[in-house]
């Protein structure tokens, strides 16, 4: 399904979620993880998504990134309505339109920092030199040029997180989803990383949702969205 905004190549919102409901079936029980959630994120907005464990913030983030499909409701990312996408379409969508930074960083341990960025190209369109130039540019912007040939095991926690941010930006996404990016870092390093996230997102005009427990992150976000029991309380 293509929206008018997409066909025109422009869109006002990076994310539009309307009436999102997600119900998990566990044995004979139904667990409502999200209950008619509406969330709109502007095209260069940074939103901090906070809430207690089990509140539904990770599920919301997963649906926004095309990792899960909602039980009900509409999800439009960068002008693309993805709520009805098949698994194959969602794979293509994730590869082309969103970036992820995971809680445990999850770099590929046998690839260097540069190769961890290029893996996005390898599983995707294979742009070759263009991708290599982009990886080098991102590494330079993230202050990792001299670490490009290092394996993850040779990098510090902050450097790994920066490589993960670089990987999330490789496909020039409309929306980047951060899953508790500072949980494994000490407070000063966490502060640096969040500041870096803000700088990078703002410099590119890219929207971001940062899932966090850390209240300090909210200072760097344009807006904080609270979620509790699967409902948003802004």
């Amino acid at each position, binding site marked *: 399904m293509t929206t008018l905004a997409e066909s025109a190549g422009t869109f006002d919102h990076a994310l539009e979620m309307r009436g999102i409901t997600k119900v*998990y079936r*566990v044995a004979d029980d139904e*667990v409502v993880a999200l209950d008619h959630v509406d969330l709109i994120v502007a095209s260069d907005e940074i939103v901090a998504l906070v809430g207690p464990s089990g509140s539904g913030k*990770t*599920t919301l*983030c*997963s649906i926004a*990134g095309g*990792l*899960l499909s909602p039980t009900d409701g509409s999800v439009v990312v960068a002008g693309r309505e993805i709520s009805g996408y098949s698994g*194959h379409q969602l*794979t*293509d969508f*994730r*590869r*082309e339109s969103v*970036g*992820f930074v*995971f*809680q445990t960083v*999850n770099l*590929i341990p*046998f*690839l260097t920092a540069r*190769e961890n960025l290029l*893996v*996005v190209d*390898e*599983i*995707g369109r294979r742009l070759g030199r263009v991708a290599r130039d982009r990886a080098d540019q991102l590494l330079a912007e993230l202050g990792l040029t001299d670490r490009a040939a290092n394996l993850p095991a040779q990098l510090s926690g902050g450097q790994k997180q920066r490589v993960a941010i670089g*990987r999330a930006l490789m*496909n020039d996404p409309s929306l980047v*989803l951060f*899953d508790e990016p500072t949980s494994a870092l000490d407070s000063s390093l966490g502060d640096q990383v969040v500041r870096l996230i803000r700088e990078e997102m703002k410099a590119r005009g890219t929207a971001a949702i940062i899932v966090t427990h850390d209240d300090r992150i909210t200072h760097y976000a344009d807006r904080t969205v609270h979620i509790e029991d699967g409902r948003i309380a802004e």
Partner: protein
Amino acid sequence: MRLALREMHRRPGRFAIATVILTLIAILLMFLGGLLDGLVASSTGAFRAQRADLVVYSGNSRNSLERSRIEPDVRHQVESVPGVTRVGGLGSVQLGGRIPGRGARDLVPTVLFGYELAPRGLPSTPPGAGTVYADDSLRAKNVVVGTTIHLGPARSAVTIVGFVSDTRYSGQGTLWGSLETWRQVLDANRPDARVGPGVVQALVVQGVSLGRAGLPEQIDRATDGATTTLTITEAINALPGVSQQRTVFNQIIGVTVVIAIVVVALFFALLTVERTALYGVLKAIGASSRTLFVGVVLQAVVVALIASLIGVVASLVLDALIPAGTIPFVATPARLLSSAVVLVVAAVVGCTFSLRRVLRVDPAAAIGGAP
């Protein structure tokens, strides 16, 4: 795919156990295959060397050269069949040979053949009485041109005038002379098996290629059932022990291939379980299950190719090191190649057991969003 290859390059230790096990299996496969080929070659060379299309045995011989006797009148009937272009008599006798330089009781098992239609590598006119060509394998027994071998209890003397390759029969070295030489040696050493003038054990037949398919039946009909006519391939398969050797070895080879499939299946299933989190991340950032599974298959194929390459080298070294006339092992390119292909196919089949596991990896697990 490059990701899969990089993993093998950067973490070779991870694949070492599978490579070692598959290498041992490759060597076993190629060694078993080489033994089978060697055994079959040493049993069938005399028949494979025949430049003929058909072998005619007597009807009551149960396709055994030793039991078969073809009388001159039957031969005449065979020669008269339309489509038969050339007919030659064939006789054989298995005897121990005394070779100069070896002990009096150190007999070398040999088979003396008398022929009319020259097999491959032999002159069209058989050598004169008392002279023979020897199979190459007898060189290992110190036989050279000019050596006189004394055959059987009568110590019938035959002198070597040349060599011919790949003509062993029932695992023994062969000697090739005229039918006259054969009859003399047979009469002297096997009085019970003595044959009359013009009698041979079997006929080898060349036929016109057109309509050759029905020629065996036409020959047997023309002799009124006094003969059983086989193609060369059928005659080879009817040789004692040949089909049994093939069946037994092929069964062992089959079991070995199943073991290879199980090894690959278990190894890559374990590897896939270990990689579940990694696959989750790769799927989350847009890798398809197909891309990931192709990577698994590629790694299995590379492991199988490395194992096969080592197996080929080991087989060639083994072939060079094994002294002639001891273990009947032959490393042929066809056998080595087919073993490598079988191993690669086994590796591909083995890693398909990991397919379901790769498909089931949930990308949402990477972000903790799975239920």
